[in-house]
């Protein structure tokens, strides 16, 4: 029995080595996206304070859209924001917003008044109902949705001019055909 104890470390290491071998075959850089190629989950969010129109998954049908998850608490969203404004001003693609995890219902509307509102419609998601359905891991995150309401691409982190030029814009043009 005592002898068996001396074999335990070897056994543990053998199991670890097996996992390492499996792990080597995986690309560490890609975050998995279970949604890509699947329809947008069903959700129906209330409007943010002071507005009338809420945001539901059915709003996305019939056009290519971006769904952008943001929050007034999120610094990276502020970094991304000027470029979203540019997209809106140029009319490249409609952006739908999900205002995520606001503790104060006034914070989101205030943020949009202060910096500008790039969104066609904004839904309020303080309890992460839509965010969980989308599998959001952090903000900002943006989903590219086609005319049939199917998620085609997920951008983790801010949309930068490079991401736009290199990935999103070509994809959008492709999906519009």
């Amino acid at each position, binding site marked *: 029995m005592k002898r068996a104890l*001396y074999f335990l*470390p*070897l056994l543990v290491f053998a199991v670890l*080595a097996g996992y390492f071998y499996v*792990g*080597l075959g995986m690309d*560490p850089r890609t*975050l*998995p996206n279970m949604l890509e190629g699947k329809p947008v989950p069903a959700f129906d969010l209330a409007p943010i304070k002071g507005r009338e129109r809420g945001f539901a998954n059915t709003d996305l049908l019939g056009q290519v859209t971006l769904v952008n998850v943001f929050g007034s608490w999120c610094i990276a969203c502020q970094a991304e924001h000027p470029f979203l404004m540019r997209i809106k001003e140029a009319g490249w693609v409609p952006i739908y917003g999900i205002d995520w995890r606001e503790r104060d219902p006034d914070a989101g509307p205030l943020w949009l008044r202060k910096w*500008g509102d790039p969104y066609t419609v904004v839904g309020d998601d303080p309890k992460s109902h839509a965010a969980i359905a989308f599998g959001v891991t952090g903000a900002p995150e943006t989903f590219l949705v086609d005319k049939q309401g199917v998620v085609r691409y997920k951008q983790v982190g801010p949309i930068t001019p490079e991401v736009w030029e290199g990935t999103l814009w070509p994809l959008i043009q492709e999906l519009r055909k």
Partner: protein
Amino acid sequence: MIIEIGHFALVLALFVAVVQAAVPMAGAQRGDAAWMAVARPAALAQFLLVAVAFGCLTHAFVTSDFSVLNVAQNSHSTKPMLYKVSGVWGNHEGSMLLWVLILAVFGCAVALFGRNLPPGLRSRALAIQGLISVGFLLFILFTSNPFARLLPAARDGQGLNPLLQDPGLAFHPPFLYLGYVGFSMAFSFAIAALIEGRVDAAWARWVRPWTLAAWSFLTVGIGLGSWWAYYELGWGGFWFWDPVENASFMPWLAGTALLHSSIVVEKRDTMKAWTVFLAIVAFSLSLLGTFLVRSGVLTSVHAFATDPKRGVFILILLIIVIGGSLALFAWRGPQLKSTGLFQPVSREGALLLNNLMMTVGTAVVLLGTLYPLFTDAMTGGQSKVSVGAPFYNAVFVPLMIPMIAAMAVGPMLSWKRGDLGAALTRLWLACAAAAVAVAVTWLVQTGGSVLGLIGVLFAAWLAVGTLVELAERVRLFRAPAGESLRRLARLPRAAWGMTLAHFGLAVVVAGITGAGVWKVESIQAMKPGDSVDVAGYTYTFHGAQEHQGPNYSALRGKFTVSRGGEPVVDLWPEKRVYTVRAMPTTEAAIHPTFWGDLYAVVGDAQPGGSFVTRLYFNPLVGWMWAGGLIMVLGGVLSLSDRRYRVGAPTRRRVPAGAAARA
């Protein structure tokens, strides 16, 4: 031409390593003194050849020889000289070469200073070192050759990752590697002991200085790394439980356990197999650290080389080294008989508790670090769940509480059978100090957090407990002052080392508690002229200007900080964009004070002329690094103790200090 010499030297080093691995080992098995004697010149030659190779690569970096692929990819002619040199190991190939160089340095040190080691043990240990060297040299030459040419030569280099262009990070990897590779010595001695089937007090004395040196280096490396993260990443945090950080923390925990268990082997002739096991674990975790960073098995914010092909090679290397040594341990370990008996309440009992907590801690970090790998493999790559700070905090705090509580008591207990009651009575002062510290904290702290109180409680307990132990040793206030002073002067350096290291940990605990629990943070958009109050300090923003550095352009903000109307300091945080790689980095402006750091970060410009700013007050954060330094000082002092000095393995009579404490 020089680069070819380097390449050639490295190939030669491989052949010498093969000889170093094979001949002395065979000699030791056959009892052939001439064959065993090969170990020494082989280790010296190995060191010289690797040093030549390393020198050649350094030459290429310093002279910006862009006909070398590695230099072209990682350096740039406009880079300051410091970063040209640190660029040698700022990339995968060069860092592996540094690894092997350090390995050769340690091997060389054994060959030079290990003359009075038993010849069998010395030649076996050097042979194991040679074997490790063979593995790594093969890896470098076949998968990561730093001497590959680039033809035609590049006009200029691509520049070093700007995050790495920092003095803290320039010296972080060498120290880390000195620590990692240092554990290879304990490992080689452990394997040699397993082959010989014998572990005794002399063996423990031999392993101790190497372990202590590795531990001290690793402590410096981890400290530098967290300091870098603190001022460079710009989040006011210092430890993120990132896989790369964990990779350095695990060998540290195992190495700390090894340091303590080897004392038990020396003094009480017990815990032998366990100590050998810890030596294997500490080095295995060091290798794993190298592996985790290099192969991309786990992702991380600063893994700077990810390549599965190399990963397969390293995995095979790991299986041979770790799997092989653990198999040897399973086979020969049971033969290492311990003679000492164990009483739970005794010095060795306390050291066992330390080992238990350290090992569980190591296992917890390992599990947390590898957890994403497990879930990933289970779900076929569909779930990249990572384990974050809440997990580690929830597990680590409860683990550290009994350990720190026992840390003050343990040194007061005698070997074999201690008197817990007497030890606790003598620690009344520590109890009182802890109570006072908690009471003061309770009064001062706003938004009372229990965690803060616990941290202060144990920091004070450990700090004062350690000092009480020192006072007991020199019979302060019991013997005449002259007698106490004489005892103090005669105290062995190893005893000073323990006192300093334990005291340093108390300071670290205080620092972590302060920065972790009472951090004040304020994130906002500010226009020039705006003021914000953070932790009693008023920060006035004066706008941000473009500013040109040697190889970057920067946005530099200015804050004036005042307290109660009195000016305190001007802060100049920067946001840099390095011209070659167009990668932005944050340069936080930090004003350290005794009670905490003022910390300011300037972010992007916003429409309307305002800037995002992040302002922090990080209480006691500097204590953490100060405490780390004290711990290292303890390690170095203990290392200089003549009883443990490398080359003095003979058993002396019980020294004066040890007699005084009994």
